[in-house]
């Protein structure tokens, strides 16, 4: 009778968390659904009126929304492979024997970017990537690259910081996967072939897959949520070149004050997020 307990007991354990999260998670959501069905502009609260699905219609047919969405996935599609590639290299280097002190130091330093306040990363980006007094251009040998003011460069800069901040995460997760490979199996494989690639592909990779899945899930979610770093670095500019989905919704809701429309955008983003999370978790996570 493993795991059978009374309803009351179950509720006593899980109820507070459910109620807590429902209050802060679901109640606002219900409110958002309500506003999304209304003309609801903060500066015109006297004109609030029910307009059905009009807001959703506007969002779905608004190229600006879909451009922001496309941009967000483009960022994911460029930054994530880089993070995985660099992260894998770093984890393989760290996994090799020898130089243990230097490796401990490196492992320690990998913790730093992840823990850094995202907003500060953006501020730091402003200082370091400034065209004139930025240290990045100086280190590039006095290159006068205009990072913040050029659409392509600004996007590249966002990718850089995203990679800087999250490659360590990928590296550490993959490193943990590598340490799960039983020593004797790895050793045996190494005796058989000199090619590191083959060891990686056939011996180590299976142990890395769960980590890679987790990385995929978390990075997708975090990219859809991405706000702080870009807000402090480019504010979505120049033009709209780095306006990702969360920034765009923030702009509509808190600068244009059209909370009805912004709520509709937010709900659509939520649906996309849930669908993706469902797919990821149901496909890759067989637990529970």
């Amino acid at each position, binding site marked *: 009778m493993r795991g059978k307990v009374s309803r009351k007991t179950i509720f006593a354990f899980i109820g507070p968390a459910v109620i807590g999260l429902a209050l802060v998670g679901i109640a606002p959501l219900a409110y958002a659904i309500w506003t999304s069905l209304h003309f609801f502009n903060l500066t015109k609260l006297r004109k609030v009126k029910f307009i059905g699905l009009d807001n959703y219609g506007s969002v779905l047919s608004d190229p600006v929304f879909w451009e922001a969405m496309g941009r967000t996935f483009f960022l994911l599609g460029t930054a994530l492979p880089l993070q995985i590639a660099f992260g894998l290299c770093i984890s393989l280097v760290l996994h090799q024997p020898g130089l243990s002190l230097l490796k401990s130091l490196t492992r320690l330093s990998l913790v730093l970017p992840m823990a850094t306040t995202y907003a500060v990363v953006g501020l730091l980006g402003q200082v370091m990537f400034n065209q004139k007094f930025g240290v990045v251009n100086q280190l590039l040998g006095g290159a006068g690259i205009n990072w913040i003011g050029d659409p392509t460069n600004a996007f590249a800069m966002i990718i850089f910081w995203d990679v800087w901040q999250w490659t360590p995460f990928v590296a550490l997760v993959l490193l943990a996967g590598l340490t799960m490979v039983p020593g004797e199996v790895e050793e045996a494989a190494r005796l058989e072939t000199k090619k590191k690639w083959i060891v990686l592909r056939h011996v180590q990779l299976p142990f890395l897959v769960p980590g890679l899945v987790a990385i995929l899930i978390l990075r997708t979610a975090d990219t859809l949520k991405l706000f702080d770093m870009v807000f402090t670095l480019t*504010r979505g500019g120049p033009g709209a070149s780095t306006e990702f989905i969360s920034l765009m919704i923030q702009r509509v809701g808190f600068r244009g004050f059209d909370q009805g429309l912004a709520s509709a955008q937010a709900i659509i983003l939520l649906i996309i997020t849930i669908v993706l999370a469902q797919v990821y978790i149901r496909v890759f996570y067989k637990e529970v």
Partner: protein
Amino acid sequence: MKLNRLPAAAAAAAIFATGALADGHGWSLKKAAEPYAGTTVDVVFLLRPGYEAIEAMLPAFEEETGININIIKHPYENALGEQVRDFVAGGDLDIALIDLVWIGNFAENEWILPIDEFTSNEALVDPDLDIDDFFPLVLNAFGGWNGTIYGLPFDNYSGLLFYNTCILEEAGFDGPPQTWQELKDVYGPALTKDGKHAFALQSKRNETQSADSFARVIWPFGGSFLDENFRSNLLSEESQAGLMFRQDLMQYMPDGIVAYDHAETVNAFAQGDVAMITEWSAFYSTVVSPETSKVADCVAIAPEPTGPAGRKPALGGFSLAVAAQADDDERAAAWLFIQWATSKANAGEYLERGGVPARVSAYADPALAETFKFIPALVESWQDGVPEFRPRFAEWPEITEIVQEWGSKIMLGEVSTEEGARILGERMEAVLEEAGYYSGDKPLAQ
């Protein structure tokens, strides 16, 4: 960010000690403020020189009145959102800081009170208030909406041409350009070299894109946002000429000008990287202070250049109005503060400390122009400006977002000026339609 202040009790004691009560007739701030000692007034300030100036003067007011002024500082770009959220939420702000483009919005939402409420109350009104001493254009544009005055002009701007005399002289110019055309065709090529640029026009996708960049080029060329029927006028030949002029002028501006807000622009000028900028008078103290400027000795000021339609300098600035959500004591205390901060008596000190008052009398002394080189150009531009330089109606917050978006796209070359202006116009008209201007529900006021 509370400032040092006397505890209320001590302030009250001070009032008795100095015998303020003895002064039976005649109005005094001390006496008027007596019932409100200990009241705290919340107000949003910006991170700009005019606010630092009044902050430095504040202890005198607090000591005199016992009223506490609680300043909440925000960057300009957050200030509207913060205030709207506060007013919607029925929050703590007792004073509204109103950019001229917000006044229609604030007034229509009844978030602010007309000054009549206070000027009709003898206990509160300073006999020296002298409303007529404000530049009429400024008072009406910054503080007025639909014929009612709500706010008193506080942090006041006019667009001016700041130029670096050292760079200009070196290139053989003995004065600034008179027209926009001259700026582009003569000064542009001559001053853009060795990594330096002739001109910078702040064009970040913020309010500055609408106010300092977009509007600045359409008006002098005879264009405007709206025609007399409130339809988009951006496709008119004149508006298009202005927008194309801006595209053309970009070759003489630093790269990435679309990422320049005021701070970047002022800094580029202060570092000697650009020879000329058109900026608000409010930034004068920044470019002439050796602490923040490398070119402090080379700064000169002229009115903005003229275009085919004449001189149409940018007009912008703020007024302070009492917020309707304040309670009676807070309203009175807030009014006393506003009246004091914008008073004739304080205008001189405000100017000295880096502020720009809107008092005619403050500029009467011709000697002042020696110290504050922006005065003649400023006074000239306030005689006759375009109040609807940016429309001041309630829909501006939505419209400016559209202008910012498409204005930047045009500059980046993502759309042509014509295509961009067409889409911008359509989206702008959609907002105005929704607001009821075309069905006659709303008078065509901007």
